[in-house]
């Protein structure tokens, strides 16, 4: 099932595993230190393929390992608002006043259902 995710860089974590500073990583990869610093800080949103190739090669991981993705609850809540249709006029107002549209006590409904 598709879920909205938050994608974030793992470059800082991978560099730390090697005991490297941002400067050391930039030097080893032949990249501008500011570029690497922005990636590690999560500020970089547009990174070219050459930079990605250099980072993955230098860190000895596949390009995909440079990121991690986690489910984003905020996106999920936004996406599911109204997922069961739009309430009819007065339907939600009854909920707000503590009532329920129609017969909603499922235990009562079941307990009083004709045999």
């Amino acid at each position: 099932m598709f879920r909205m995710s938050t994608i974030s860089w793992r470059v800082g974590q991978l560099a730390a595993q090697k005991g490297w500073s941002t400067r050391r990583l930039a030097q080893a990869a032949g990249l501008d230190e500011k570029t690497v610093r922005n990636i590690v800080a999560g500020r970089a949103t547009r990174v070219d393929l050459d930079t990605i190739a250099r980072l993955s090669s230098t860190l000895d991981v596949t390009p995909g390992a440079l990121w991690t993705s986690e489910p984003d609850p905020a996106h999920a809540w936004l996406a599911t608002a109204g997922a069961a249709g739009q309430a009819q006029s007065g339907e939600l107002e009854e909920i707000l006043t503590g009532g329920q549209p129609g017969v909603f006590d499922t235990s009562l409904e079941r307990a009083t259902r004709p045999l």
Partner: protein
Amino acid sequence: MSRCYLDTNFLYAHLRSKPASTPDPIETWRRSVLAAVASDGGVISALVLDELAYRLILAWLRDDGVEDPLSRYRAEPQMTMRTVARRLTATWRAVESLSLELCPTDQAAVARAQALMAKPGLSPRDAFHAAHALVATCSLIASTDSAFERVRGLSCLAP
């Protein structure tokens, strides 16, 4: 830490209303609950799923123009379930995507519910909801039901 148990009426309102650009009472409630859930996650129980399905089935029958949904449901339960099957499947997927914690109905939850029925005298359904919330270490319950205010250790996050 303030974990939040989501009562059925909150999830029902969420699933039956698109986000409003101008905050109405439902939208304001949704935002306050989501702020609570964002930090420590949301908790539900099988009771919530049971009630949610039942309420939505009746709502969908009304959407389809059935004047007396409960009578229709009782008279033709299998036909009704076939009619709403796709919508119910889509709803389960929506709820699943929220990554809510499902508190199990175990012996601890049952014992807690029994105690809450005796004191402060909650109705059986309310007692089971409150019991699940407490067992799951929730201090908040998103609900319009004021009965939960009588439960020590629970605060109601109402509209």
